[in-house]
């Protein structure tokens, strides 16, 4: 390995470790922490945007202004206007509501169904676990989740609520599996045996002892799935099976702007950028929680 000139001086004295050789080994970890903080900040920002949308948005997001169509970003319209002269910034701010709502509710559905099933399955094991619940989740995971969500949404009829239900159902097997795996690991621990020996009933053991111990990984998974759910909602809306106009959804806005990509690229670039930023910051934030909870990495 050709060492850079600058370091060769130190090589004489310093034995560089061949396994991991860079001096700033904490650099990437530090960077990661910083990223996680940035992610967290953007997540908070998104929540603020969504909650205070009516106060923050400079215009009514559905107000059409036919004299101001397809205007590029300017001092009045920071992100420009769309095909019907609506203020894009305001639509993006209100779009945060849809995205966050979709992300949280669909993951909420998945958690509500997935965790109890997974915990029961992992705690009691046996036939139901091995041959029914696990195999059913295997089978569900064989379907491309987007396709499954699309089909469910189509069967239920296009609307945001149906899209959220569809996404939530599609995400459920992930939580079943995770909860089950964690419970399996915990039930062998001494504290569970101790609790059992002290005569606690299974339900209480699960709720009071096992559940708090498996909460960490579940939180991480839930956070990361919120990001996936945001993309899923945007995808469904993009294909016309999610949020219906005129409610501003980032995915639907992108679909609307796609036709004007050469005349007015901002209509599709900004909503896409916000989906991207929201997802990446939730991901980074989730990774941060993971690292924070994982004792191995400390």
């Amino acid at each position: 390995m050709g060492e850079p000139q600058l370091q060769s001086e130190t090589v004489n004295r310093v034995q560089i470790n061949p396994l991991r050789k860079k001096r700033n080994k904490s650099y990437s970890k530090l960077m990661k922490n910083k990223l996680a903080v940035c992610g967290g900040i953007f997540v908070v920002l998104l929540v603020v945007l969504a909650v205070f949308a009516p106060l923050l948005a400079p215009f009514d997001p559905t107000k059409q202004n036919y004299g101001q169509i397809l205007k590029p970003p300017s001092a009045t319209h920071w992100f420009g206007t769309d095909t019907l002269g609506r203020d894009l910034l305001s639509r993006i701010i209100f779009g945060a509501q849809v995205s966050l709502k979709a992300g949280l509710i669909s993951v909420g559905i998945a958690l509500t169904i997935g965790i109890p099933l997974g915990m029961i399955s992992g705690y009691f094991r046996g036939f139901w676990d091995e041959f029914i619940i696990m195999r059913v989740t295997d089978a569900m995971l064989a379907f491309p989740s987007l396709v499954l969500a699309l089909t469910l949404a189509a069967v239920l009829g296009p609307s945001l609520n149906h899209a959220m239900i569809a996404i939530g159902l599609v995400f459920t097997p992930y939580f079943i599996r995770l909860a089950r795996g964690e419970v399996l690991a915990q039930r062998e621990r001494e504290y569970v045996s101790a609790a059992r020996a002290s005569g606690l009933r299974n339900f209480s053991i699960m709720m009071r002892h096992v559940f708090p111990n498996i909460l960490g990984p579940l939180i991480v998974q839930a956070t990361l799935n919120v990001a996936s759910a945001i993309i899923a909602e945007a995808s469904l809306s993009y294909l016309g099976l999610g949020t219906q106009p005129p409610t501003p959804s980032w995915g639907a806005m992108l679909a609307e702007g796609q036709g004007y990509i050469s005349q007015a690229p901002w209509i599709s670039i900004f909503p896409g950028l916000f989906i991207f930023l929201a997802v990446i910051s939730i991901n980074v934030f989730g990774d941060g929680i993971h690292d924070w909870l994982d004792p191995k990495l400390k």
Partner: protein
Amino acid sequence: MNDILSVNHLSIGFDHSYGHTSVIDDISFNIEKGQTLCIVGESGCGKSLTSLAVMGLLPSGGRIHDGQIVYKGQDISRKSQKELSEIRGKEISMIFQEPMTALNPLHSIGYQVSEVLRVHQKVSKHEAKEKAIEMLRLVGIPSPEKRFAQYPHELSGGMRQRVMIAMALICHPGLLVADEPTTALDVTIQAQILELIQNLKSQFDMALLLITHDLGVVSETADKVVVMYAGQVVEYGDTKELFTEPKHPYTKGLINSIPKMDEDTEVLPTIKGSVPSPDEMPMGCRFVTRCPFAMEICSKIKPPKITDGHEVHCWLYSSEDVKGENPSVDKV
């Protein structure tokens, strides 16, 4: 000089984002051609690190702050990884503590043994295979032709350690570094492996740097002994002399803790306490917290090296009169 390896004033530390900790502090020893030198000490005293430093294989963050490692007249502590790779496996070989994990599970035994040959010598594949089988036979692996194609998980721990030895010795190195090669093995196997190492050592006429905490092993195999405590050499000398006349309280403690067949003691003496962590090293002698003979000066100033018969680092043997009171040394 007849020394095959001499370690001079070696200091090793770890870098952190918040500074660095010194782990090995100014150690020196040397091994002559064909000799066996043992490094003994409790776990955590820097034995393994020293052996890894000789191989140029310090773990992440570790680096040599000072000193030299001279092999056959060359300071190998200054060499680049590329230069070192030509020495490792060919001139200096190493066997590790854990035979269970030291072999790559996805490659056959034969591949892993003959790989050493193919790296260091220009030999044909066929020749490499023959030599590898020969070597496997030499380390006592039954039906080596069959074993050649097997994978590590199909072998027992003892067999795997034999494979490691075959790998280490196939290029006939001048020095073998063995880091507690028997610790992870069954007691019955331990003796076999040690005997094998001994035999091969004389057969190949190589020097052996043996890391162990088993003083019984030391007394049977070593020509010279280095006793390490908390990253420092406390006593260093010929085996016989050191065993018959141990000087440092730590060495004495170690020797006393060996069960003796001829004595009838109910309780085995132990050394009280444990090795201090690098962050809480005493300023003076590092053993001071556990030493039954500790004096005031011991906790303040690092003991001098005293060469009287053999080397010992202890204020007890200092010619200076320090027993009564504080010497003219300022507090640091």
